[in-house]
């Protein structure tokens, strides 16, 4: 994947959390009348959705080292007032003593929750859901404009083995688990907004609990299948010059030609690397969510990106913020994968005559294979000692 694209995506996610991007700065307020404390203007500015500079509160948390000596008036205060202590709690500037252990236990208040919630319930659902509906709509239009891609001259009647049983098993393990993950993920993301009003909270609670169980546990099948298919197919998916020719010809989709291809054409290689790279990324963020606070990775990733790209992404994140980033990144990557897979499902089923057989029973029509993977057919026939144009194996 293009590194700049990844950096841009991370910057986008990071900037979305920072609500100040959308808000105007509040006018400077004179706080001398309140001794530096909050004024009515500050409250009104927040109500007007203006971006208030909170440093007058967040940095006003006292300093015990500057406490008055015990010999002076009010010298036993310790240097911090109750208000200062509460502000320190509010802005997570304390180091509390705790009986309960755990990475998140020491954070008493963190205020990144609402931007995360608004982002998840707003743009992620809107743009993610819209993109899914959009790709389905585009494919329907494409089907009616282009029609089903047929085998020129009709099927040969003889077949050639396209994928072995273990390859098909790996593909369907990946596909089956991904579809289950996609459906249960969408239920989890969108259920509150779209299903509770329809089916009520009680029925949705049962559905959500079942979705959570399936999503959390079938993820292991996805990760196993991802590793399996990577090992089986990576050698056939290394990009080469042939892919450029295939892409320049648009795969022959619009010109109704048949550019040469080996076992996998450039379109299939794009799907392969999309699934592998995004699948790896979604698995990492999924593991981070599956084991809360145990696998923080965004602060380290941001630090790495900052050192390479010179960006200014936050490198100190609270445990909760790590989870919030993981959740949003998980959703975004999953949506991109779903878009690619919907297109893949289309071309592998209704979009092309004879394509499903490759993963159905592993045997494809010889003429279909020659039209879409001519160089691969030649390789197989050469291995079997069969000359070009003399028919295929079955």
């Amino acid at each position: 994947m293009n590194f700049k694209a990844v950096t841009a995506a991370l910057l986008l996610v990071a900037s979305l959390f920072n609500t100040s991007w959308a808000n105007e700065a509040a006018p400077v307020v004179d706080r001398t009348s309140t001794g530096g404390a909050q004024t009515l203007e500050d409250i009104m500015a927040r109500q007007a959705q203006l971006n208030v500079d909170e440093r007058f509160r967040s940095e006003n948390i006292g300093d015990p080292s500057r406490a008055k000596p015990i010999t002076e008036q009010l010298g036993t205060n310790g240097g911090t007032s109750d208000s200062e202590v509460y502000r320190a709690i509010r802005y997570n500037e304390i180091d509390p003593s705790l009986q309960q252990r755990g990475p998140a236990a020491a954070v008493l208040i963190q205020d990144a929750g609402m931007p995360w919630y608004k982002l998840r319930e707003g743009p992620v659902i809107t743009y993610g859901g819209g993109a899914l509906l959009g790709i389905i709509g585009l494919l329907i239009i494409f089907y009616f404009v282009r029609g089903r891609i047929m085998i020129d001259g009709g099927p040969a009647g003889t077949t050639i083995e396209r994928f072995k049983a273990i390859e098909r098993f790996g593909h369907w393990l990946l596909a089956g688990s991904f579809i289950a993950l996609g459906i249960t993920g969408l239920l989890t993301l969108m259920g509150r907004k779209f299903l509770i009003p329809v089916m009520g909270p009680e029925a949705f609670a049962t559905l959500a609990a079942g979705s959570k169980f399936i999503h959390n546990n079938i993820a292991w099948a996805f990760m196993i299948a991802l590793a399996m298919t990577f090992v089986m197919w990576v050698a056939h998916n290394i990009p080469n010059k042939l892919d450029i020719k295939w892409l320049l010809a648009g795969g022959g989709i619009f010109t109704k030609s048949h550019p040469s291809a080996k076992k996998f054409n450039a379109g299939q290689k794009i799907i392969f690397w999309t699934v592998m790279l995004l699948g790896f990324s979604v698995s990492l963020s999924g593991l981070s969510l599956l084991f809360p606070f145990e696998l923080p990775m965004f602060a380290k990733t941001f630090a790495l990106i900052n050192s390479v790209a010179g960006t200014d992404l936050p490198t100190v994140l609270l445990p909760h913020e790590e989870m919030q980033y993981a959740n949003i990144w998980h959703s975004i990557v999953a949506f991109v994968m779903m878009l690619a897979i919907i297109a893949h499902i289309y071309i592998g089923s209704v979009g092309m005559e004879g394509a499903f057989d490759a993963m159905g029973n592993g045997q494809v029509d010889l003429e279909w294979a020659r039209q879409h993977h001519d160089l691969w057919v030649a390789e197989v026939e050469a291995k079997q000692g069969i000359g070009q144009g003399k028919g295929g194996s079955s």
Partner: protein
Amino acid sequence: MKAMISAFVIALVIAFAAPPVLNEFGWSSAERGSSASSVRLN
């Protein structure tokens, strides 16, 4: 089609086998917060 059906079955087997297997290693997130000693708000 046998490969497809067996893959779907195995996916479900993995899903149902995952919690007890992970629990053996103390990794089960499903059990977090549900032990008898944990604090319950109700």
